């Protein structure tokens, strides 16, 4: 055994944040070491420094006892470090073998020895039990196989230290199981693995030791056997996890949103949402729980008119609004907080005031009847919302890109709620947002429910689902597998269903051990 890697007092300052603040990290030979923390805690930065993608400001890296300077990925590769990125680093038009050997090609004279490349890839893939067709085109592979190619890329280069950055984020539960098997096999062959994740259950299932980061600082390292879910959660978040939102029991009114057998296809014609029927009533929050990528995004975008409903019907207060444009939907009383504020929710170069009218910019009183914008009204509108939602800094003319994530999200939430929508759709409303803003956003959503809006909430955070919802639906593989009142929803049960468990089986199996492992 012995340490293959030591990182000492690594510090990295980005223009706006201190990403790593004197972080220590070490890796034993042949262990799986989980590196955990919430989004933005600095785990990816730390490993990017190790792989030579970022330069540390200070600190030391020691590999197998030798101090090293890693200025480029090439240096890291030479030190037998491999990294599997969250966003795959694969070249689509090339084949599997070509991707794997890229940068370390096998030559015959001045030419590529393609045959030998294929053989070599086959050899490694059999050796580690990672089955793949070396001559397949990347564009034709599933996500799970793409990840396999990434791991093979590292192994081909002789990686003894393997870093995996959030490897399960994009995988189906079955693929996660496969990945874990692969990792255990690699470990058995002596590979040392750093496993970056923010999912506690994965830590417990796979790792030997765990290091927790929070806001760029190391909180601690423990053997996995000496810790548990609650303990890790507290280390990650810094306080008891369950966010308590003050709310009265719901007083549901008439039905506002009704989905009848809604299906949505992606641009390749694959079914993403399969025959979903749901109903949300005025004065209640319906939460949709699910592992990301199970069709939630497509479902809400289809309701909002940003994706086509391929079959089925959407009704808003009894009106058929199937495949209405976003503009008509808005006019009909729909508010929508999109999951990605930078991509959808904001025009970052626009001022706070201009962002606060995005989507209602053409309504009275923001334009007059000749199409000219009424600057005074727009500013007045902004000042009101800035004060009510405590958006900082509070200058309406400030460009939105200069605000923090939490304040940017407040702009989106403020704008959508300010229209007092009959139906409020919130998709990942607190992603990448600081704790203070989370609480404020949660309170506004509940207040809007109490005003009589129907709220459809989609979140990958179970805590958020559990603390805001009055009813919970679970989405898996494009289908709603179960809908239950909040009283019946436990983290355990939702987790079981989110991973593809059958609702009836949950009753039968009771507390099944398999859930904790997955």
């Amino acid at each position: 055994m012995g340490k293959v890697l030591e990182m000492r007092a690594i510090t990295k300052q980005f223009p706006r944040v201190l990403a790593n603040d004197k972080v220590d990290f070490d890796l034993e030979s042949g262990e799986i070491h989980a590196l955990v923390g919430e989004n933005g805690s600095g785990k990816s930065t730390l490993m990017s420094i190790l792989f030579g993608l970022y330069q540390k400001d200070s600190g030391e890296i020691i590999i197998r006892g030798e101090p090293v300077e890693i200025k480029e990925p090439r240096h890291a590769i030479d030190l037998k470090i491999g990294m599997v990125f969250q966003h795959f680093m694969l070249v689509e038009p090339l084949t599997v073998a070509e991707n794997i050997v890229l940068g370390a090609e096998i030559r015959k004279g001045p030419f590529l020895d393609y045959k030998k490349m294929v053989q070599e890839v086959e050899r490694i893939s059999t050796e580690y039990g990672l089955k793949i067709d070396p001559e397949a085109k990347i564009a034709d592979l599933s996500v799970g196989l793409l990840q396999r190619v990434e791991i093979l890329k590292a192994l081909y280069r002789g990686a003894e230290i393997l870093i995996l950055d959030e490897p399960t984020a994009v995988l189906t539960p079955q693929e996660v199981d496969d990945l874990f098997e692969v990792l255990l096999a690699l470990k058995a062959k002596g590979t040392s693995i750093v496993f970056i994740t923010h999912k506690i259950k994965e830590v417990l299932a796979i790792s030997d030791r765990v290091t927790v980061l929070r806001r760029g600082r190391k909180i601690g390292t423990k053997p996995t056997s000496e810790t548990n879910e609650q303990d890790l959660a507290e280390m990650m978040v810094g306080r008891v996890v369950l966010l308590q939102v003050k709310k009265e029991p719901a007083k549901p009114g008439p039905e506002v949103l009704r989905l009848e057998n809604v299906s949505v296809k992606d641009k390749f014609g694959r079914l993403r949402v399969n025959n979903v029927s749901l109903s949300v009533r005025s004065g209640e929050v319906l939460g949709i729980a699910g592992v990301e990528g199970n069709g939630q995004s497509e479902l809400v975008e289809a309701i909002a008119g940003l994706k086509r409903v391929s079959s089925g019907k959407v009704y808003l207060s009894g009106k058929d609004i199937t495949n209405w444009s976003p503009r008509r939907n808005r006019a009909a009383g729909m508010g929508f907080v999109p999951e990605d504020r930078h991509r959808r929710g904001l025009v970052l170069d626009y001022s706070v005031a201009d962002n606060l009218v995005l989507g209602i910019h053409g309504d009275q009183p923001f334009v007059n009847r000749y199409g000219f914008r009424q600057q005074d009204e727009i500013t007045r509108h902004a000042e009101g919302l800035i004060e009510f939602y405590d958006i900082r800094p509070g200058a309406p003319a400030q460009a939105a890109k200069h605000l923090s994530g939490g304040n940017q999200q407040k702009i989106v939430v403020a704008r959508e709620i300010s229209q007092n929508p009959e139906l409020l759709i919130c998709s990942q409303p607190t992603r990448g947002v600081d704790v203070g803003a989370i609480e404020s956003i949660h309170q506004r959503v509940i207040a809007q429910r109490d005003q009589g809006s129907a709220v459809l909430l989609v979140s990958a955070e179970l805590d958020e689902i559990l603390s805001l919802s009055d009813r919970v639906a679970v989405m898996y593989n494009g289908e709603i597998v179960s809908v239950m009142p909040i009283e019946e929803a436990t983290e355990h049960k939702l987790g079981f269903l989110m991973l593809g468990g059958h609702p009836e089986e949950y009753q039968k199996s009771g507390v099944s051990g398999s859930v904790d492992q997955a």
Partner: protein
Amino acid sequence: MWTKLKSLPWYEVLLPLVAVVLALLIGSGFILYVGENPLEAYRILFTESLGSMRNIATTLQRATPLMFTGLAVAFAFRVGLFNIGAEGQLYMGAFAAVWVGITFDLPRFIHLPLAILAAMVGGALWASIAGYLKAKLGVHEVINSIMLNFIALFLTDWLVTGPFHGGSWVPETVRIKPSATLTRIYLPTRLTTAIYLAVAVAAVVYVILWRTKRGYELRAVGLNPEAAEYAGISVSRNLLIGMAISGALAGLAGAEQILGLHNRFIVRFSSDLGFMGVAVALLGKNHPVGVLLAAVLFGALQSGSAALDRLTSVPRELITIIQGLIIFFVAAEYLIRRLLRLKEDA
């Protein structure tokens, strides 16, 4: 630091100024190479372009078409479109203007506006081909605009040497009727009322982009099309509108050339006016006021260039070299920021 600086208006002016200074510095290397004194050459350039009212008038006359093409390119940039096709739109606009100018016999107050309008329509329609292919089929507008430049060039070539040939040995049309010509305002220079039109159009462009709902939507599409879509703004419609307006503005440059300068269509009359529009737009930071100023600078360089030949041994193409260099440097904001030791935020 950078964030604060960037919000200051002077910084918007500083970058283009540095680009111009760098280009002139390198240009002086060329002047030295041919054995002349750069200061003397630049002095001549300056006095010959801005040293007298008459020279200023000539400079403004040279600047006028660049104001239109600059506005055209800048407008498209604001909508997220790179209209490198102003050259072709200018030709199509020019042809439409010459056609109206030749064909109709109307009182001036109808004839002239009609010819100008025709040029706008001609440019707008031509630009709309690239706009349509972008909006409906997602084909990048740059390549299509380049291709359309050449197609317009050869199409007008054919029209002017074929069906609309003036009859002389020169490849040009007959002259337009006097009732369709723009009035010269500073004889003997060829400066016309088009300069007023250019300033007015710049003001209109400003109002459209920053004071109307349409402008809000156009800019939103340019900055973040997905957010625009989310906000109920039709991306494809605004791309079409943006490209059409841009083409109409380029068409105005054609109108100016025909109705003000040449009074007939001479094949390939445009000396890269459309491409220079790209330079003018970038140098003017895609702002109408900046575009007007940048066009005047380019107009000054061009109007002073003849004097270089006359009074020095520096070939007048020095000006083309300097214009090319200015484009290099305005595009290289990153370089200039580093030269000024200004850090970029992440």
